[in-house]
């Protein structure tokens, strides 16, 4: 009994902080998502109407929300595998015994992660410039006609994906590198003796041994990529023709630009529900793969 009380004493402060700064605001947001809280309500609470699930119903009827969801899914479905592949590839190269200047490359690949997004976005806007950009200049050398990256509705999202993958792959690369270094060398030696080639070693040793790392990286990347916001905010402001509006960008505009806090809270809960389901699926999938 005594030890139980002691346990509560230790956990109490943390629980209190979590309760006040996490659960209470989440609860308040949930209540708010059932009202039409806006600037009129800010002026006078008499102007607040309880609207039940209307925010949710209207949200599901808003074409821009569906477009934002589609854009976000596009970003996640293309961006996450691309980012993981880039991270894994870079980690494998850096882990190879044949690579020189490992420290230099590790730093160089990790540098984009720690640089300010706004600063690199400005540089990428120059790289992606239609007429003076380096990327189009390179394509021109290959005989490919210039692409209007950030102003063509079909190309804006691929440009954002390219930028996001470049910006973020270094982080997962470090995690993969740690995972690779924890694989004992004798496994590779044994496989080598059994006649396994490079591909065989990757397929039957590296890949399964990286399983838990892979699961973690995919969950982290997925939840990170679902929260796409800063890239379009800085590079395209959601344009052209709203082809880079993400769910979070949509929520930001509803909440902090138009002060429709009720509707914005509803967006937050819908996004939460989607991400929760996808994470559950990932865990289920990982368990299935283990069994």
């Amino acid at each position, binding site marked *: 009994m005594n030890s139980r009380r002691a346990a509560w004493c230790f956990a109490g402060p943390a629980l209190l902080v979590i309760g006040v700064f996490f659960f209470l605001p989440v609860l308040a947001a949930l209540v708010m998502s059932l009202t039409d809280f806006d*600037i*009129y309500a*800010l002026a006078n609470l008499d102007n607040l109407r309880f609207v039940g699930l209307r925010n949710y119903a209207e949200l599901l009827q808003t074409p821009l929300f569906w477009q934002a969801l589609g854009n976000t899914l596009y970003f996640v479905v293309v961006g996450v595998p691309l980012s993981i592949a880039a991270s894994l590839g870079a980690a494998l190269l850096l882990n190879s015994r044949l690579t020189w200047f490992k420290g230099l490359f590790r730093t160089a690949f990790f540098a984009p992660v720690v640089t300010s997004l706004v600063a690199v976005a400005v540089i990428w806007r120059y790289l992606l410039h239609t007429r003076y950009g380096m990327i189009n200049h390179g394509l021109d050398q290959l005989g490919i006609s210039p692409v*209007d990256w950030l102003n063509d509705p079909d190309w804006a999202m691929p440009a954002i994906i390219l930028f996001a993958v470049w910006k973020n792959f270094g982080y997962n690369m470090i995690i993969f590198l740690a995972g690779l270094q924890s694989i004992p060398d004798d496994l590779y030696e044994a496989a080598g003796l059994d006649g396994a080639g490079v591909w065989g070693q990757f397929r039957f040793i590296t890949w399964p041994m990286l399983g838990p790392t892979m699961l973690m990286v995919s969950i982290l990347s997925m939840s990170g990529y679902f929260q796409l916001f800063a890239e379009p905010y800085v590079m395209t402001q959601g344009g*052209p*023709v709203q082809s880079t509006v993400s769910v979070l960008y949509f929520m930001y505009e509803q909440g902090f630009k138009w002060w429709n806090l009720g509707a914005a809270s509803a967006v937050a809960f819908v996004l939460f529900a989607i991400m929760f389901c996808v994470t559950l699926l990932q865990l289920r999938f990982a368990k299935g793969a283990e069994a």
Partner: protein
Amino acid sequence: MRDGVSRLRRFTRTMLLLVACGVLASCAPRKEPGVVLKFWAMGREGEVVTALMPEFERTHPGVRVEVQQLPWTAAHEKLLTAFAGDVMPDIFQLGNTWVPEFAALGALLPLDAQVAASKLVTPSDYFPGIWDTNIVDGKLWGAPWYVDTRVLFYRRDMLARAGYAKPPQTWAEWMKAMNAIKRRVGPDNYAILLPSDEFEPLMALGLQNDEPLLRDGGRYGNFRSAGFRRSLQLYADMFAQKLAPMNRITNVYHEFGMGYVSFYISGPWNLGEFKRRLPADQQQNWMTAILPGPSGPAASIAGGSSLVLSASSKHPREAWQLIEYLSRTDTAARFHELTGDLPPRRSNWNVPALANDMYAQAFRQQFERVKPAPKVPEWERIATEMRLVAERVTHGELTVDEAVVQLDAKADHILEKRRWMLARKEAR
């Protein structure tokens, strides 16, 4: 471990020191004599206005002004948060399109009585359209501080080469002139720049019609009116006839200097930028003109910033004196020198600095004709929808007829709460 202990000790010592400092400071005599006015201003104006304060403090003994500068990008959010947290300043700068919103919030003090009694603030000296932006529901909520509108920046030499000695005055002439330029500059260059991330050019064209953009006291959208249809058609034609480029421009000054575009609808901040950024041999080649209208000179946007008093201010008398001081012609002239912002009073436009500036003359003519945006808090949101729908029209995804129907539906939806509130007010 040892290291951890010594670090903890050092931390404790620092904290003790900090606490001691705090106690000492609060004990020290800190009596503020007289009144402290909190004044929030945005961007460049916030930086510069501090230079005008010593003179005010000298002529108003016992009053001290604390200026806080807000970045424009965070200003709206910060003001709303300050209102929600009841920590509003006494006096602040407010973009005049935000006046209806803050008036609806009840954050502002009406100024009708002060102005009626004032010898310094004389409404008849102000550009009427600008003054009007501060009147919401029949009450005056702010005094114009500096003004802003949209006019036509154009390349004089390009227009001359296309056979035009004077800038176009009507929409028809304008289209003709742009087509003539386009024929000369070829398929890789254009006649006019209409940035897709700005709603102001289309809004200015929309304001040129007699029909208002919203109808029934701001209860419903009025985009299906014949007037707005004409404006949107003109805007769409500029893209359809390849007179305006679709792609985004990184450096307007460079493109304008290169002749990539010959017309550009923009505001007063570009007066200084064009003078600074275009090379000396091109300074004779650009000029400003008032916006062409459906059939001759017409309206443009009444923009700019006003000075307003907070409803919660404890020193409204002193704060109003600060507004009066900043509205005086001589202070305004000084302010124009410091910022390049254009003054809202006609008498200021007669001082040599402005009267002799040939590039600024179009602005003066335009200010006499400006019209305020619809005075509802939801306007900026509706204008953003207008920009997005117009962008879809220029990409060929919507026709003008479909667009105006869609716009009205969106505006009506956004205005639903306003209609409910107005109906409730009438029922009482």
